[in-house]
């Protein structure tokens, strides 16, 4: 680690020096013809919307240009560049992603939306990052809001909200075919066609397929984490008049995700196996949205969606007596089938001077059936139906026109587990000059209990007897019918400045006070049958309180028309009553710097360096805290835009080392080593 730091430090110094030189150079605008102007790529620094600059929240936006210059093939990989977000790759197809702490394979304090549809799973409480996806060239932006977005977005957005937004069909006209091939992508292909049915009706249809190679563990053995997925979908946008806009999105997908679990059985003789499971997942969803501008003062939006999926989850664990098929893949997975309906209404009204009201209401119902098969897990009840009602209201009061405003609001929810939840919040926004914004926020947010906490019982491990006369121990995670919601009170402060059109700084600090955090506390009981053994059961108890605090910095600098630099830094500390509750699951420091240089004639070079500090990730069935060392990652990409229709790029990622672990998963004590990877990509437009 230390060896690599010196060249990076030197290059940072050189960067600053030549940056100083280039700023002095003229940025005189040359003469361009209209034909040339309409073919110039525009950068995103100049594009920063007024809305974002004035938002009283820690919000960072990854634009489609950012995605292209990051060389990210998946959404979680793109999120590495966002300050405050910790992305840790567990295996080839699983990630632990969190904002402001408490990272976990099932990070339950982050809400993730795809075009308005929640992809947060209420089963385990987290996002299966290997599934939500789209043709990345059709992605408009990813908005990441750190801090409780509860007032507008609702429960489980305790530490943040990630909003993945695709381009409208109007912006994706024509055909596009893109294909990647490399050490991981074997291959990946996307195809999209967009057209119009009339002057105000736009559509696109797309399909995407990928087959990805998995990783190895430290010993060189495969982690059985190959994955492949096919999906197809469409989007339609219809604007019949100036006032109304209708959008329809639909997709269907099916795929297989490899996973490796550890399983142990005690009798007749202690046996431990790593089992490779191929878990299927398939599903579809349909979303409709109607936005109506009744007048300049009033805007209504109505959204309805239906989501259905069936997903296998690999479950390992421990068992007392091995059955004949104990280690067979079929005996070690659980199938979840879920149907979700969601209706959401929002109205924005600024008919009253100095006030902008937003209010809304929504209803979601989700029905699931869990088939545990022979796995070491049981759900009681196996079928449930959960209803969630929510209503919110928010008022932004402009105290001094365009200079100071106060926003207050609250969301009220009712869920079947914990009844009414109240999530109020207030924000201040002060714009002392055009270029500067200061904001502050105080909010309360909750995280609802998951199905696992309430209804799931998993035999997570087994310990063979130490001596022949000792009993074996079965370790079980048990449900708690009274598992409660976790709460946070978040205090935030932020400052943004754009000293010029080409330079911006955005800094945010926070202090999160948590109560009723769920921890599993155990007890012992002795069971005589079938063989005398001890059961050590851990049930979730909402008994932990503690606090976290930190700061995030994001800076963008368009050094010259041909060179852009972006840097971000994240700092995080925690203090919990009971250690080691999750206080070692996020690094104290994270830093990244990215550079994109345009050489002319369509050639561009992209370079990025990421530093992620060390952490001790505690997977459920590891014997004790495991320290994951800090790592330094370097990416290098070269892209060539031959013409408007052809684009090629070559990427090398994670170039600094042959493999490093980033996080532990729940099901296996082995750690995947994230390797160096290379891929080439071709994009054709017609």
């Amino acid at each position, binding site marked *: 680690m230390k060896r*690599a730091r010196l060249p990076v430090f030197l290059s940072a110094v050189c960067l600053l020096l030549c940056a100083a030189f280039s700023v002095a150079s003229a940025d005189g605008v040359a003469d361009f013809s209209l034909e040339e102007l309409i073919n110039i790529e525009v950068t995103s620094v100049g594009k920063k919307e007024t809305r974002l600059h004035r938002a009283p929240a820690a919000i960072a936006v990854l634009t489609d240009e950012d995605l292209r210059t990051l060389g990210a093939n998946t959404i979680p990989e793109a999120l590495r560049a966002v300050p405050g977000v910790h992305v840790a790759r567990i295996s080839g197809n699983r990630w632990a992603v969190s904002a402001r702490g408490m990272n976990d394979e099932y990070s339950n304090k982050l809400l993730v939306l795809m075009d308005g549809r929640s992809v947060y799973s209420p089963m385990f409480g987290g996002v299966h990052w290997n599934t939500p996806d789209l043709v990345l060239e059709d992605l408009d932006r990813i908005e990441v809001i750190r801090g409780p977005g509860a007032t507008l977005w609702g429960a489980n957005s305790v530490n943040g909200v990630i909003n993945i937004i695709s381009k409208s069909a109007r912006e994706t006209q024509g055909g596009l075919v893109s294909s990647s091939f490399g050490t991981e992508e074997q291959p990946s292909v996307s195809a999209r066609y967009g057209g119009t049915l009339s002057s105000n009706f736009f559509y696109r249809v797309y399909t995407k397929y990928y087959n990805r190679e998995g990783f190895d563990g430290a*010993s060189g053995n495969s982690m059985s984490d190959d994955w492949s997925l096919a999906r197809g979908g469409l989007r339609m946008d219809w604007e019949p008049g100036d006032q109304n806009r209708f959008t329809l999105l639909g997709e269907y997908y099916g795929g297989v995700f490899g996973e490796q679990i550890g399983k142990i059985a005690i009798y007749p003789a202690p046996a431990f196996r790593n089992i490779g499971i191929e878990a299927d997942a398939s599903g579809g969803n349909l979303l409709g949205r109607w936005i109506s501008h009744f007048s300049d003062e009033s805007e209504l939006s109505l959204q309805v969606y239906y989501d259905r999926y069936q997903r296998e989850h690999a479950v390992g664990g421990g068992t007392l007596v091995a059955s004949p098929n104990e280690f067979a893949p079929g005996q070690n997975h659980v199938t979840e089938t879920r149907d979700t309906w969601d209706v959401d209404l929002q109205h924005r009204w600024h008919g009253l001077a100095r006030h902008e009201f937003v209010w809304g209401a929504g209803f979601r119902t989700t029905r699931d059936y869990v088939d545990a098969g022979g796995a070491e897990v049981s759900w009681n009840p196996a079928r449930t139906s959960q209803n969630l009602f929510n209503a919110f209201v928010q008022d932004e009061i402009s105290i001094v026109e365009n200079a100071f405003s106060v926003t207050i609001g609250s969301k009220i929810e009712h869920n079947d587990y914990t009844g009414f939840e109240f999530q109020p919040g207030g924000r201040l926004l002060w714009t002392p000059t055009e270029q500067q914004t200061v904001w502050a926020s105080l909010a309360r947010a909750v995280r609802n209990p998951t199905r696992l906490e309430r209804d799931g019982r998993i035999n997570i491990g087994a310990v063979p007897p130490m001596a022949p006369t000792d009993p074996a121990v079965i370790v079980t995670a048990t449900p708690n019918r009274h598992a409660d919601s976790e709460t946070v009170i978040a205090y935030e402060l932020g400052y943004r400045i754009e000293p010029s059109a080409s330079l911006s700084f955005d800094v945010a600090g926070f202090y999160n006070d948590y109560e009723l955090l769920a921890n599993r506390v155990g007890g012992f009981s002795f069971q005589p049958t079938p063989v005398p053994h001890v059961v050590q059961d851990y049930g979730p108890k909402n008994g932990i309180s503690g606090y976290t605090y930190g700061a995030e910095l994001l800076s963008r600098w368009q050094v010259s028309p041909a060179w852009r630099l972006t840097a971000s830094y994240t700092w995080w500390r925690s203090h919990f009553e009971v250690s080691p509750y999750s206080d070692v699951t996020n690094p104290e420091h994270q830093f990244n710097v990215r550079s994109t240089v345009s050489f002319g004639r369509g050639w561009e070079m992209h370079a990025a360096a990421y530093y992620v500090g060390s952490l001790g990730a505690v997977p459920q069935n590891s014997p004790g805290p495991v320290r994951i060392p800090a790592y330094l990652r370097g990416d290098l990409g070269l892209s060539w835009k031959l013409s408007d229709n052809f684009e090629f790029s070559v990427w090398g990622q994670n170039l600094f080392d042959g493999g490093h672990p980033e996080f532990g998963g729940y099901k296996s004590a082995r750690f995947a080593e994230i390797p160096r990877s290379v891929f080439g990509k071709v994009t054709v437009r017609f």
Partner: protein
Amino acid sequence: MLILPATNLLVQRALRRCWAFVLASAMLGGLGALPNAAGSDLVMTEPQVKALCLLNFAKYISWPAEAFATTNAPIRIAIAGDERIHQELERAAKNKVISGRPVLVLDYEDGRVPENCHMLFIGATQKSRTQEILKAVSEKPTITVGDADDFADRGGVIMFVKRENKVRFEVNLKAARAAQLQISSRLLALADAVRGKE
């Protein structure tokens, strides 16, 4: 405790240093790119491109004779609601001559539509007043340009649209005719879409 296997540490370190050097040079590639700044495939900011487009539009538009007081009266362009485009246009229009006329960039005061401007750009912060502003210039030979996505629907003449990271535009010929303005077919050919063609 987990023990990570010992690989060939020397090779690892050497490789790391190598890549760090390559990466650093890639980041420093900015140095190499600077001299190429003029005249090649650039990456520019959106306001820069839009401001230059406004100047270019003026080349392809014919205003009625009464729109100008004298043969070398300047072309007056007003920018409402986008400070960045205003700055870029001021810089780009210095000493520029379009169809034999200099270009004058007007300051737009909140709430007052400038008199006798030949081109008016309505930007994001004035979006809610678009209808009002368009109505105020509807009787005048003013080319209205905007980047709201319903600008053409509301009667604007030229609407900027961003496609695949490039600034494109659409033309509403009906609105142009209503303002008694002639738009060269060369401009129409470069537009992504033209409405109101007869």
